[in-house]
């Protein structure tokens, strides 16, 4: 049986040569992301902005968005957003925090129910007060920062410091670009998006660790090889795995985005983008960073047994180094 191979065998792709392109390219994208975030901002969901979302389904088949908008604007709830989504009978109504505190928020929902309740079924009601949203912003930010610190610490112990720095820079890059993605697409940013971002952080580090692991192994195996060649060799060696895994994850995520329902869609789309960026950055951002950070200095070349771990010992005794 002929098996499918997405990645060609024994590639010798000179990845490191691309660092002169990939670094400026990523720098531009990162700056664009920051600018987008500053000037266009994010479409914060009520989790972070406070306010109310009501999801309606027309009892009589079709939702009349225009009539609905008129009816609800009469209630004077400030800026009201009425949108259709999903199929023709569904609509969402969204408005910001009400003046007069928490009880005013509740009263507003009550008003909407009163004015449309006979024609529409209220499928979902979410009300978040301003204080709660502030706390959610705090814990969300804290989560992202903490996870990066924790992983950095882990990598610092397991690898040389250059690896940890490279991994964190790559992760920051992925984070920035994901934030840019949210700004650009105006997908709703809520607590589930924070979950998406943390998962992207996890996946990004996962990718990076797989590549770094191989680089470390090759580093011990081919002591005389120039660093950029050695890194190219490592990345080419893990390339089939990288492509294979990215594909399976994409298969899962695309089915989530297409079949998972609207509640989870912005999560899935962000993840798809994040996985793409994470795969790219592990190869084109993190790995070249090792060269810039001077991974193999004179000391390492002279005394490779300074860190005689089990794997290193095995690699040096068993492998017959083939000159590349």
């Amino acid at each position, binding site marked *: *049986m002929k*098996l*499918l*191979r*997405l990645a060609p065998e024994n590639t010798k792709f000179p990845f490191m040569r691309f660092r002169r392109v990939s670094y400026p390219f990523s720098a531009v994208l990162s700056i664009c992301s920051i600018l987008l975030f500053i000037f266009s901002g994010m479409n914060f969901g009520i989790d972070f902005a406070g306010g109310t979302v009501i*999801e309606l389904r027309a009892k009589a088949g079709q939702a009349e968005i225009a009539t609905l908008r008129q009816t609800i604007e009469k209630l004077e709830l400030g800026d009201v957003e009425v949108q259709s989504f999903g199929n023709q009978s569904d609509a969402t109504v969204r408005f910001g925090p009400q003046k007069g*505190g*928490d009880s005013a*928020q509740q009263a507003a929902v*009550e008003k909407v129910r009163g004015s449309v309740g006979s024609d529409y*079924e*209220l*499928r*979902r*009601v*979410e*009300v*978040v*007060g301003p*204080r709660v949203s502030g706390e959610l912003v705090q*814990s969300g930010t*804290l*989560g992202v920062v*903490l*996870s990066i610190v*924790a*992983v950095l610490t*882990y990598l610092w112990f*397991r690898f040389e410091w250059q690896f940890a720095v490279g991994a964190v820079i790559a992760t920051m890059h992925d984070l920035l670009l994901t934030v840019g993605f949210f700004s650009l697409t105006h997908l709703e940013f809520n*607590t*589930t998006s*924070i*979950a998406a971002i*943390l*998962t992207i*952080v*996890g*996946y990004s*580090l*996962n990718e990076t*660790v*797989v590549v770094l*692991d*191989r680089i470390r192994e090759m580093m011990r195996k081919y002591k005389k090889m120039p660093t950029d060649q050695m890194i190219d060799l490592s990345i080419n060696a893990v390339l*089939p795995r990288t492509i*294979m*895994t990215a*594909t*399976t*994850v994409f298969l*899962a*995520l695309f*089915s*989530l985005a297409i079949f*998972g*329902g609207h*509640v*989870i869609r912005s*999560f*899935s789309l962000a993840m798809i983008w994040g996985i793409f960026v994470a795969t790219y950055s592990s190869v084109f951002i993190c790995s070249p960073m090792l060269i810039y950070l001077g991974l193999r200095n004179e000391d390492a070349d002279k005394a490779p047994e300074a860190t005689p771990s089990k794997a290193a010992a095995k690699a040096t005794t068993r492998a017959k180094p083939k000159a590349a």
Partner: protein
Amino acid sequence: MLRFATWKIIAILALTLAAVLVVVPSMLAPASVKALENALPSWAQPRTIVLGLDLQGGSYVMLEVDKASVLHTQVTNLRDDVRRILREEKVAITGGIGAQARGVQLRIPDAAERAKVLPKFRNLAQGFGAKIGGAPPLEVRDSGDGLVQIVVTDSGVTDKVRHAVDQSIEVIRRRVDALGTREASIQREGDDRIIVQVPGLQDPEQLKTILGQTAKLEFRLVAEPGQSPSELEELEQADQSGKIAIEKQVMVQGEDLTDAQPGFDQQRGGEPVVNFRFNIRGAQKFGEVTSKNVGRLFAIVLDNKVISAPRILQPITGGSGQISGHFTVEQANNLSILLRAGALPAKLDIIEERTVGPGLGQDSIDAGKRAAYVGAGLVVVYMLITYGVFGIFANLALFVHIAFIFAGLVLLGSTLTLPGIAGIVLTIGMAVDSNVLIYERIREEQHGGRSILAALDAGFNRAFATIVDSNVTMFVAAAILYFLGSGPVRGFAVSLALGILTTIVTAVTMTRMMIAIWYHYARPTRLPI
């Protein structure tokens, strides 16, 4: 690599079987689960997966005790106490007792008199719930020039708020139970918050109506012409027909009620009313007031709103009465629930609410299932066409992997949310990563000229370190999500973490076992990979 102890094989198979058995009840229709419950002995009762409110529909409400209202009650009580002490000791003050945000202040010009009452004021702290060794709830400040301030301290406020939360939880539990919903969860959150979660509620508005009201019931006389304004206050009428002047003095309080039931008044053409019954003390007071004031209007005041003010036609001495106020059936029902459960000690604000209708919940489950089936199907086919027979092993391991995640969720009693389903779908994609790492390594080693056995061995050993490193990082992210996330996000973190933990067992050990057994029988001369 290829010697795989029989007991290990048996252990892995037993574990898999156990996981499948744990998961089966969750896959069955509710009726079959019931049948299973009846058929099985008590130690083997089936447990099903707990669905989050976003999947089964229901309401999540976060309430916060209104600190200002707690403090206001404290200051009012304090003022009454101070007035009582001054009267008992016959101490004269200049000016009145001034209320401040955090306490009261008064001026006692005479130093000797001051010395007499100050210890009594300090003693008030005991009635305020002072604890031995704890910070005092009250502070008495004597500036020496006659000005005395009695202030509720920060610890006093915190204490009272905590206490109010405890009491509120009890009242809320009684109210929610009276709604007839099962499995409601009512928890304290932090110092001043309460989370109420009620699954599968048909009418979330009713829940909010019932949670939001303090339900302080009072019976007070309506003012008559010629009464001095200092004894009166203007109160809003519940039907919004304007204000009405009511005596400040409370004749009978809701806490003396023993029962309240909705009913219909035949004399008023079957209008819904609430019938109530007093305890002995209440009945006595109620009898006294109604005997003395025949002919006057008697106001029924709920949360400072006048519900109705019927005329007292004759003394009511039996200890029971009726509240009418042009209620709908639902209103009469809600009011009786509130009265039965008692009053909340403080005002509660709804600061967060998430309600999902049962229809949307079912849609989400269906969508999640569809995504999981399609995703898993695609991954399985892809693994199969890429790795052939090894792909079958990976797919079997994937199947067990999913069973383990669900079994973990069932055993932990953790809630499955929509983001949780997303987490599982994502793990389906991620889970094969470990297998891919191993297989690609085996291929590579074989290409490098190693023997079959050496290639298999190297593949598993070399890949293992990478698998551990990469999964630890992912696990850290999941753990942080769990500790900082709330509700559905937590569900996602649990699914993800379980997925990562079980990967090690399924992708590494199980696949290894299957390959070992396969090798034993197939004796290949070259690995088909």
